[in-house]
């Protein structure tokens, strides 16, 4: 066999690395809709499920399939289907089923509330390699305080159970807010009882489109973030593994503005057909259906390559290694691609104080 890793995670990582070196778009996300049947206050993208304007601007079934074929022809292997809530689209399976025959590794992000027995049967017949359901609480009271929709907790649990009963590969995740952080332990217990992994995220950004957001009322305090990270060292481990922390960390001048694979091996297409480097960015809004896939991909690469370098405040910051800021974060919080994000500055300072000396471990 060739000199590739034998296990899936390292293999996928190596394929992404090779693709980035060749500037091949191996990973994609199709945001099939920006609409959602839940109404989470902290969401960066959501538009109402019944929004006629949003619905009428979404790409058609045929347009999504044309884009998938074009992306496949240009090197796509990993494809995430997300939203909004992708299962809101009445034609979801008209898009999904042909994709399952193309030779792609599909991932589906969903809130789970629309997974009926019929939907579970259809997914089990040709499952994504991975489905991820976001759990917003461990009780109806808290879950629905976050989602704003009565009955959504029971429907989410039913969706999870329908997929687990059929053996569909599934993982759970949660977005922690001030409203539900107290139920993290209970959510872990629920996941354990279902035999499923649960990951948690708690960095909440403003809306991608710049519209008003209630995110600041939902964000955890820095003390709460620090407490969570102290109990779960994964974020720091990831920073060390990424080479951003510790004795071998690169200097600020050596770190490209986009230090992930966005615009180098991965891209996103929004519900209206605009291509960008990552799901948190709406620029450069390249139009593959109008200019062709390859030209749109080139436009995305050019956008990433032209991104400004680190702001001097960031490059001289002694907490930089602990900071998750990237051009996408700056875009959502400041409207630029490089300015410091005060929310993340505070978090980075808190991490620096907590993890001082970690690089000697």
């Amino acid at each position: 066999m060739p000199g590739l890793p034998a296990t899936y995670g390292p293999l996928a990582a190596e394929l992404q690395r090779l693709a980035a070196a060749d500037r091949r778009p191996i990973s994609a996300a199709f945001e099939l809709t920006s609409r959602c049947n839940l109404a989470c206050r902290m969401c960066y993208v959501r538009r109402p499920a019944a929004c006629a304007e949003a619905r009428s601007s979404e790409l058609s079934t045929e347009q999504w399939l044309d884009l998938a074929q074009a992306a496949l022809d240009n090197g796509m292997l990993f494809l995430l289907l997300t939203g909004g809530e992708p299962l809101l689209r009445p034609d979801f399976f008209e898009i999904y089923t042909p994709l399952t025959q193309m030779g792609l590794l599909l991932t589906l992000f969903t809130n789970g509330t629309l997974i009926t027995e019929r939907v579970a049967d259809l997914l089990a017949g040709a499952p994504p390699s991975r489905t991820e359901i976001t759990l917003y609480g461990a009780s109806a009271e808290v879950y629905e305080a976050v989602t704003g929709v009565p009955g959504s907790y029971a429907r989410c649990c039913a969706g999870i159970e329908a997929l687990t009963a059929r053996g569909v590969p599934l993982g759970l995740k949660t977005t922690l807010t001030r409203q539900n952080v107290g139920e993290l332990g209970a959510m872990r217990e629920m996941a354990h009882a279902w035999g499923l992994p649960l990951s948690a995220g708690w960095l909440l950004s403003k809306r991608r489109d710049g519209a008003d957001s209630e995110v600041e009322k939902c964000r955890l305090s820095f003390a709460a973030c620090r407490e969570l990270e102290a109990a779960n060292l994964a974020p720091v481990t990831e920073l060390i593994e990424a080479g951003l922390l510790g004795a071998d960390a690169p200097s600020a001048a050596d770190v490209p503005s986009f230090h992930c694979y966005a615009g180098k091996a991965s891209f996103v297409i929004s519900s209206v057909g605009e291509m960008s480097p990552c799901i948190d960015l709406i620029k450069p809004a390249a139009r593959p259906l109008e200019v062709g896939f390859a030209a749109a991909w080139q436009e995305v690469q050019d956008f990433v390559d032209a991104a400004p370098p680190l702001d001097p405040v960031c490059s001289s910051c002694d907490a930089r290694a602990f900071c998750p800021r990237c051009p996408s974060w700056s875009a959502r919080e400041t409207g630029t691609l490089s300015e410091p994000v005060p929310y993340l500055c505070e978090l980075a300072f808190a991490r620096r104080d907590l993890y001082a000396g970690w690089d000697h471990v």
Partner: protein
Amino acid sequence: MSCPQTESRIQEGIGNVVVKRDGRFVLQQVSGEYLLVPIGSQVMDTNGLVTLNDTGAFLWRLPLEELSVGELAAALAREFDVDISTASADVQTFLDEITGMGLM
């Protein structure tokens, strides 16, 4: 080498080479690497990727169920300019591996 009995669809585009063989896997060539990607219900049994080397990818394109080990070895020997005993051993190893992985 042509394989008239195999329903193969080969696309040679800018990026991937995609070969459909038996309705359970698609052979993709990504960044020069050969990968078998499970499709449809096969994801339930093979959730991930199978990597193939050049000889494995060549053999995968042949109608494996319809040819003898000798015929496969002869095809391999011609394609890669190796002696027949080496080719036979390679074919047997390949068949053992993919059978063991439930791919046939």
